[in-house]
C-alpha cells in the first residue's frame, strides 16, 4: 500500500503555521513586548529623539539657521560662569520647593475635607478640578488682571481695609512677583494633589479607623498612624509628578512676567526659550534646558528606590 503524503502536507501547513504563530504570541515575553512596542516607539519618536537631539545641540555652537560647530562642554562651562544662570537655578529651586510644599499640604487638607460627607459633595469635587482643567494661559491672563495695579481686586480689597493706595505692586516687586507665581502655581496644581490623594483616602479600609478608635486613638493619631502611612506611596508619586511639572514650568511665567522684574521670576524653561528662540542660540539654550536634568534625574531615582523598598 502506498501512501501519498503530499496533499496532507499541503493542507496541514497553514494550520500548523497559525498554530505556531498563536503559540508564539501566547508566550508572555512576546506578548508583553508586542503590547509595549507602540508606546515605546511613541516615546522614542516624541521623547527619545528630541532628547538625544537636545544633547547633540548642547554640545555645539549652533546659531539658529546656521550650521553647528562641535564645542564639547563649552556651553555648560559658559552657563557656569553666567551669574544669570545661577539666579535662574536659584529661582527654579525656590519656586519648585515652595510650590510643591504648598500643594502637598494644601492638597492633603483638600482631600481630607472632600472625604467628609456634606451636601452637594460630588458637585464640589467636580468644581474643585476647575483650576486644573482651565488652560493655563487663560487662567494666567485672569490672574494678570487680579494682580494688575489699576484693576486689581486684591488691591481694591486691601485699600478698603486701610492699605495705602495703590496697594502692593504684585508683579513689579521682585519678591512679591516670585510669591505671586508660587501662589498661582499652587492654585493651579492643588486639584491634582487633592483628587489623587482623595482617591488614595478612599482605599483606606474603614476597619483600620474603627480599630484605632477602639484602641483610644485621637483624630490626630488616626491621621498620623493610619491615614498618613497608607497614603505615603501616593504622596510620593504625586510629589514626583508635581516636582517634574513645576520644575519645568513655562506657560505661567511666560505669560505673566516673562521672567521679570529683573529676572526675579526667570526659570530654566523660560530662560532656555529666550536664549534659544529670542537670541537664536540653540546650543546654549539646549544646555540651559539640560541643566534641569541632573536634579530631576536624581529625584526620580531616589523616589523610585524608595518606592521599591516600600
Amino acid at each position: 500500500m502506498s501512501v501519498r503524503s503530499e496533499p496532507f502536507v499541503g493542507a496541514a501547513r497553514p494550520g500548523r503555521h497559525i498554530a505556531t504563530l498563536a503559540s508564539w504570541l501566547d508566550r508572555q515575553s512576546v506578548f508583553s513586548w508586542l503590547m509595549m512596542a507602540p508606546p515605546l516607539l511613541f516615546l522614542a519618536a516624541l521623547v527619545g529623539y528630541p532628547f538625544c537631539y537636545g544633547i547633540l545641540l548642547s554640545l555645539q555652537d549652533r546659531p539658529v539657521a546656521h550650521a553647528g560647530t562641535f564645542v564639547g562642554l563649552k556651553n555648560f562651562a559658559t552657563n557656569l560662569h553666567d551669574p544669570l544662570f545661577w539666579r535662574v537655578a536659584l529661582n527654579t529651586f525656590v519656586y519648585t520647593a515652595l510650590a510643591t510644599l504648598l500643594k502637598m499640604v494644601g492638597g492633603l487638607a483638600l482631600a481630607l475635607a472632600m472625604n467628609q460627607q456634606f451636601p452637594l459633595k460630588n458637585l464640589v469635587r467636580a468644581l474643585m478640578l476647575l483650576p486644573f482643567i482651565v488652560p493655563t494661559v487663560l487662567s494666567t491672563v485672569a490672574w494678570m488682571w487680579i494682580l494688575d495695579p489699576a484693576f486689581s481686586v486684591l488691591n481694591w480689597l486691601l485699600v478698603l481695609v486701610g492699605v495705602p493706595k495703590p496697594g502692593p505692586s504684585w508683579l513689579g516687586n521682585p519678591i512679591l512677583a516670585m510669591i505671586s507665581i508660587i501662589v498661582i502655581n499652587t492654585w493651579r496644581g492643588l486639584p491634582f494633589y487633592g483628587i489623587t490623594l482623595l482617591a488614595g483616602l478612599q482605599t483606606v479600609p474603614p476597619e483600620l479607623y474603627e480599630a484605632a478608635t477602639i484602641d483610644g486613638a485621637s483624630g490626630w493619631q488616626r491621621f498620623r498612624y493610619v491615614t498618613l502611612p497608607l497614603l505615603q506611596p501616593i504622596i510620593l508619586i504625586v510629589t514626583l509628578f508635581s516636582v517634574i511639572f513645576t520644575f519645568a514650568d513655562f506657560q505661567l511665567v511666560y505669560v505673566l512676567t516673562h521672567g521679570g522684574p529683573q529676572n526675579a521670576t526667570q526659570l530654566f524653561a523660560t530662560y532656555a526659550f529666550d536664549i534659544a528662540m529670542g537670541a537664536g542660540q540653540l546650543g546654549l539654550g539646549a544646555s540651559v534646558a539640560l541643566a534641569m536634568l541632573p536634579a530631576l534625574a536624581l529625584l526620580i531615582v531616589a523616589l523610585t528606590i524608595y518606592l521599591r523598598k516600600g
Partner: protein
Amino acid sequence: MPAYEKETGVKVNYELTSVGSIPTRVAALAETSSGADITMNITLMPFLFDEKYLDVTDISEEIGQKQGGWYPAGKEAVFVDGKWKAVPFSNIGQLMNWRTDWFAEVGFKKFPETWEELYEAGKKLKAKDHPFGFELGHGFGDNHGWIYPLLWSYGGHEVEADGRTVVIDADETAKAIDFARKFFKDTMLDDVLGWTDVSNNKAWMAEQISCTNNAESILFVAKRDFPEIGKVTDQALNPAGPKGRFHLMQAISHSIFNFSPAKDEARKFLVWVMDQKQLGGWYEVAVSYYQPLLHGYDNAPMWQVEPRNIPYRDSLANAHVHGWPAPPNRQLAESVAKYVVVDMFAKACTGSSTRDVIKNAEAQLKEIYRSV
C-alpha cells in the same frame, strides 16, 4: 493677494502669525528649510536668519531709487555683511504719548524738549496723582523703546562700532542711569518694573498714567474705544539728552528664503508688493501705524489723516536699531533676549548702585561678545 493672482495667475498662500510667534515660526521654517517662500521679519530677525535669506540688494536698491530713497535707518535694519538680506517695509516707532490736559495743569502746554524738563513735569504730575508709566519689565518693545534712546541721548553705548568692544562702563552710561533712577523714583508707578508690553496700554485707558512710550496704537485705541481720552492724548518725539535725541527702530521687513523652490516668483511678488501702487495703499489702510522707510512717502496724504502721528515720521531721522552704533549681530540678539540693558536700568531703579549695575552688565556683555 487677489489682485496679484488676477494680474499674474500666480496663486499666493498668505499665512497670519501673531507678532510674538513670528521668530519661533520662522526658526522652524529656517531649520527645516521648507514651508514658505517669503517671510515678514520683526526687528533683528534678518541678522539671525541671514544665511537662509536671499540677497535682495538689487530689489531694494531699485525700490529705493523709484520711491525717493531709503532712510538710513531702513538700511541699518536689514544690511548684513554688505548685503540687503530683507526689503525694509516700515518702522513701528516708539514715541512719547502724553496727556495734554494734565500736562497743562502743571504748566506744560507743549511736550518737554529734554529728559530733564520731562522729569520736572513728571515730578509735578506724580504729586497730583498722575504718574508716568515707562515699562522696565520684560516685554519685547516698550522697554527697549525708551531705554536705548535714553542711553544714547546721554552718549552711552553697549558696544563700539566695531561690533566687539564692550564700552558700557562709561561716564555717559552712569549719567543715563542716574537720571533713570530719579526719573523712576519721582515720576513713575512702582509697578512699571513688572510691566510687559500690554501694561502701559491698559494703564493709559484706565487713566492711571499721564505719559508713556508706545507705538501709535495707544492713540488709535483711545480714539476708537475711549474718545474722551483720545481727545487729550498727544504724541511727541523722545526728549533730547546732552548728546542728542534718539529713537529706536522696530523695523518690519520682508525676506525671501534661499530654499524656496519659487525664488524668481518670490522676487517678482516682492517687487510687485513694494511697488508704489500697492505699497501706498497698504500704508494708507494702516493710517501710519507702519511708518514708511522710503522718502517718497514723507508727504503722503496718510500723514494728514491724524497729524498727531507726524512725530512718528520725523523720528526716523534719528532712529537706530538696538545696540547702535554696533552693527546688529547674533551677540546683540542675545543681549536683547537677556534684557541686559533694560535690567541694568531696572536694577538701578530698585536701589542697586550705578557702579554695581554697570559692572554687572559689562560682565554679561563681555561674556556674550567673547566669541566675536
